């Protein structure tokens, strides 16, 4: 330990300095300070840990899964989890039991994490970016452009989210890509609202006036001066919304409009287990617990990020 402490202390001092010596140094130092304050939040670190665990599981699903998630064994259908099994333990290893077609629930959960990550990543890439564009342009330019963009946003906001997603999926056809598209289309308006509200408070500040006095055009001001201040509140909002997005994807899967069987999407798994929920609780409960855990992890992380990234604190 004592050997590795010395260079670490040097690096720590280098990162914590008040007088950075280069552009890269300054950026590294401010990132490190943000990391330190995130590290101090134990619940956020728990959330981050769970999410890293999820990514690892998704990457290693084929190695970790005890069996193929699609192989059916009707003679062993609805086997209870291992700790409830009446028969001798060790004969047949369904750790979390099997579903109505005799597929291993644990393996399906592991493979399902890939689908969950896929949905979450795509929605997180699409919705906030659309929202950021619409919101900052509306907020900065004002006038007619603002009115038109914000009324479109209002129209999207007026629909209940899942109903609108249902309508999109119904027109586009069921499937995981269309579910992602539908969720993104319904998820961007709140981001546009947040981005516009932030832009309105930033737009008339002296530092925006100052850069206008250097002859900067609206494009430069929006992308270089307004976006950096909006992005942090959007990142927080996205992490807090992730739980809702996972649940919306699961809801679409549950209604049969998202992932199609035999895909091991968690929502679809709950939907299959619904028929047996009274006698065979584990079929629906296991994917439910997985959704709960991941949603909770995103919420915890989002909460911690809000404390770190809030620009109102950063400017003090």
């Amino acid at each position, binding site marked *: 330990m004592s050997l590795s402490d010395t260079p670490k202390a040097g690096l720590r001092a280098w990162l914590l300095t*008040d*007088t*950075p*010596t*280069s*552009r890269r*140094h*300054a950026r590294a130092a*401010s990132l490190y300070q943000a990391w330190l304050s995130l590290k101090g939040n134990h619940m956020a670190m728990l959330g981050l840990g769970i999410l890293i665990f999820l990514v690892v599981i998704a990457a290693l699903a084929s190695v970790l899964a005890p069996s193929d998630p699609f192989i059916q064994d009707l003679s062993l259908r609805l086997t209870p989890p291992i700790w409830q099994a009446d028969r001798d333990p060790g004969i047949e290893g369904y750790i979390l039991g099997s579903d109505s077609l005799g597929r291993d629930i644990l393996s399906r959960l592991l493979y399902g994490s890939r689908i969950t990550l896929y949905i979450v990543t795509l929605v997180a890439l699409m919705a906030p970016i659309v929202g950021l564009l619409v919101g900052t342009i509306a907020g900065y330019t004002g006038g007619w452009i603002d009115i038109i963009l914000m009324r479109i946003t209002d129209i999207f906001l007026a629909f209940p989210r899942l109903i609108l997603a249902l309508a999109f999926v119904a027109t586009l056809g069921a499937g995981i890509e269309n579910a992602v598209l539908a969720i993104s289309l319904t998820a961007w308006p709140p981001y546009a609202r947040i981005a516009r509200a932030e832009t309105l408070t930033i737009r008339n*500040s*002296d*530092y925006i*006036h*100052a*850069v*206008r*006095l*250097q*002859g*900067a055009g609206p494009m430069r001001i929006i992308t*270089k*001066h307004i976006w*950096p*201040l909006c992005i942090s509140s959007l990142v927080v909002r996205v992490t807090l919304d992730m739980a809702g997005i996972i649940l919306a994807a699961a809801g679409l899967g549950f209604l049969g409009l998202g992932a199609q069987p035999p895909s091991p999407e968690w929502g679809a798994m709950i939907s299959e287990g619904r028929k047996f929920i009274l006698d065979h609780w584990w079929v629906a409960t296991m994917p439910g617990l997985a959704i709960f855990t991941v949603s909770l992890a995103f919420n915890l992380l989002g909460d911690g990020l809000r404390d770190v990234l809030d*620009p109102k604190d*950063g*400017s*003090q």
Partner: protein
Amino acid sequence: MSGIEIEGLNVWFGEYEERVDAVKSANLSVPKGGSFGLVGESGSGKSTILRAIMGLAPTWSGKIDILGRAVEKPRSRDFYRAVQMVFQDPYASLHPRHSVDQVLSETLSLHGFSDIDKRISQLLDDVGLGPSFRFRYPHQLSGGQRQRVAIARALAPEPKILLLDEPTSALDVSVQAEILNLLTDLRAEHKLTYLMVSHDLAVVGHICQDIAVMQLGEIVETLSVEDMRAMKTTHHYTKHLLESSLQSAAG
């Protein structure tokens, strides 16, 4: 040639019933290389005149000539190269997420300079900040240091005219003196023309040669600093302002 020539300037906010006249037919003239102060109480329209010159006030009428040429609408980049402004509150005039280096290098590249690295060191040196400040963020700077960065940013395009909007009112007294001395030195060094807004007659007396007194959007009197010191005023509001200033200085 005059630096700033303003004739019959009106600035207003809102239209029809909501119209508020912030500045009413103001005239003032600052010779090139001169230093002019605008004084008056809060809301008398001092800062609005500066904002109108810089093109930050949306609605105005009248004549604004800079270095003998009428200003364009909207202002051209050449205009911003000749005229720059320092804002009142250094806590609000620096982008919270941009380091000193980013602020200055963006300003320099917007004005088309190429030797940016050298110029940044020179600018920091000019405003009395060492190279160690170059990569700091605003939250790592004190109020006086922030205002120095803001002054460096205003000096970056090598302007001829600097508009100062109460540059010291947000700072504490000891720092105020430093910034005022810096401004005096910079004016001598770069042969700048100053138009300075302040409610503090002592500050204006320190920096300026002539002052204009504003009340309710109108310039009520223009006089030299010597006349002001000698209390040679014609307008009763100026007299009132001078007396209250003397009282607060004595008290």
